[in-house]
């Protein structure tokens, strides 16, 4: 059969992306995985001491800093999930209330545009006990409130969560809005006619209908949580203590402060494994369900 350009061209056009995937992702992951088995410190070494090839990982699992990082990852994940809830509430309200829709949308979205470095600076200042919100409230007479969240290991994580909710709610709101808008308008009409109450309408019909939107949001959110780095640097730089470390921070810290490429690689690979463990089932279930849903409606 002769060569058909109509078949070759798309594959040629895909070549750069394929190359990038195999070199910059798969190859690089392999490289890092290899490094994580070596004794590399500041400079990579490529020899693996097979009798002790898990040494970096053993150290990692015994490292209290890593344990804290994982713990914080969970806290951050749960806390940031509020952004989805909040985003949904905002979207539902904006959707119901046509007055000022575009105004509110813009206001809720703008934090997305702002660099985390800036965000961190602003929030840190707000949390500053001498000059910030606490001082302001004390000035008003509420002397018992404490907003010095960043100073204490117990509360610093909440400050970070607050800032990240502030930053990302708008995005989830936008996604939720699109989900809400894709619901057939006749469903709303039917519910009004049936006299379904507000709560039952949302809890029993709308939210279940938006299952996929929620899952999408959840996936995006967990992605953001796992990659969270800038916000930590900008808000607390890991402190107080290493109470606000997360795996991404741990990895960079191992690379820079500890100057230990092997150790950092091990941490990075473990991050990857965690990601895979969380997402592969989630993604597979979703695609399976989606396929089933599509098949059913046909």
């Amino acid at each position, binding site marked *: 059969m002769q060569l058909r350009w109509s078949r070759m061209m798309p594959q040629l056009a895909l070549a750069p992306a394929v190359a990038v995937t195999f070199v910059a992702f798969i190859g690089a992951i392999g490289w890092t995985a290899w490094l994580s088995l070596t004794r590399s410190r500041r*400079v990579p070494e490529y020899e693996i001491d097979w009798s002790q090839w898990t040494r970096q990982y053993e150290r990692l699992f015994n490292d209290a800093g890593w344990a804290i990082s994982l713990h914080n990852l969970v806290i951050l994940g749960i806390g940031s999930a509020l952004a989805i809830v909040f985003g949904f509430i905002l979207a539902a309200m904006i959707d119901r209330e046509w007055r000022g829709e575009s105004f509110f949308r813009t206001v809720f979205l703008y934090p997305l545009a702002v660099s985390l470095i800036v965000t961190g600076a602003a929030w840190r200042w707000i949390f500053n006990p001498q000059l910030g919100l606490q001082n302001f409230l004390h000035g008003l007479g509420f002397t018992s409130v404490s907003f010095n969240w960043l100073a204490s290991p117990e509360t610093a994580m909440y400050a970070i969560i607050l800032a990240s909710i502030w930053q990302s709610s708008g995005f989830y709101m936008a996604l939720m809005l699109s989900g809400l808008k894709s619901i057939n308008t006749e469903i709303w009409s039917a519910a009004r006619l049936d006299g379904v109450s507000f709560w039952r309408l949302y809890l029993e019909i709308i939210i279940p209908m938006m299952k996929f939107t929620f899952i999408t949001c959840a996936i995006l959110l967990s992605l953001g949580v796992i990659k969270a780095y800038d916000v930590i640097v900008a808000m607390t*730089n890991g402190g*107080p203590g*290493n109470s606000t470390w997360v795996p991404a921070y741990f990895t960079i810290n191992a690379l820079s402060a500890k100057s*230990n490429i092997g150790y950092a690689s091990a941490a990075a690979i473990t991050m990857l494994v965690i990601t895979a463990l969380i997402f592969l089932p989630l993604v597979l279930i979703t695609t399976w369900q989606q396929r089933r849903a599509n098949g059913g409606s046909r």
Partner: protein
Amino acid sequence: TDLVIYHTWSAPPEVAALNVLKKNLEAKGDSWTDIAIPHDTGSNVNLMNLVAGGNPPNLFMESNPGVYRDLTKAGLGRPLTDFFKDHGYPDKYPDAVAHSMVVDDQVMKVPTALHIDGMVYYSMDVAKKLGIDPAAWKSLDEMFADFDKIKAAGVIPLAVGGQQWQVGYLTHALAATIGGPDFFNKIYGEKPDPAVFDTPEFRQVFDYLRKFQQAADEGSANREWNLTTNLVITGKALMQIHGDWMKGEWLAAGKTAGKDFGCIQIPGAKAVAASVDSWGLLGGQPADKDKAELDFASIVVDPNVQAEFAKAKGSTPVRLDAPQDSLDACSKEVLRIVADPKHQVQNPHAISDADWENSIWDVAFNFWSDPDMSVDDAIAKIKENYTTILG
């Protein structure tokens, strides 16, 4: 010739000092391309990245011997033993400095500034108002004894910045103060000795660390060192214990050493930790670059430049023969302290394994941040780290 110069300084006094070098470099007809990455922004890795990426800077501010070893391994080391023969090595340099310049029997670093990591800077105004003379304290205990009185007057006795590296510095300064050189080197030296973790001195280091933590004000968390210094400058706090680069801030605020502020070593210190900020040169360069790099090195260690540099930065000259007339009271005090070779140790950064040093920082800072953590916990943690990293 154009030199790419990598450093981590960005505070105004630091920048002023760099400009002294730049001025002199340009006078020789070379130009300066700046890469500044401030400390502690996840960026220490960048020097090695630049090397790994094939764009190493010609000059880089780096004290860690490991880096020099790695560069040498990569064929990018530039030994300076011959060069320093003409620049008064070793007699013209204080002992701590001379030691720090050597990596594996070769002179590799060009020292540029001398600091003591744990100095007490206090506001003379505040001291006078409170009727306290810090210079009279003979031990840490005497110092803490006065704290209640100070607090009662509404002044923060001791300002600290609750950041990992500041606490880490305080820790090793305390180690030097309490245990002296031998003890210090058993912890931070090239080959640490685990037996030292069981000594009473080691416990004391953490006991005092806890006292410092308890004396800290509530805004200390994650505060920059220079903001902390500012509390003292503005009279909100009596003193700060930190590296003596604090002086740059005082000078920038228009204050005079010995008149507005006093500087003493930590009361009862058995030794002080000396930081030597050093430049490294990139090896394997074409002749013109190499010459320019050496020009830069000779500018750095020129006694007159040293004096000017020290004045701008608030450091102490690394050369004993630098003109003394421009030195202020604090620099003179530093030179007095480092004159005794037995009374000084080196900044861990210049001698210990980065990973190990960092693990001590971790423990110290966690200890600092978590009031519930006991000294035993901390020591146990350090022992554990020792086994993992060096054992």
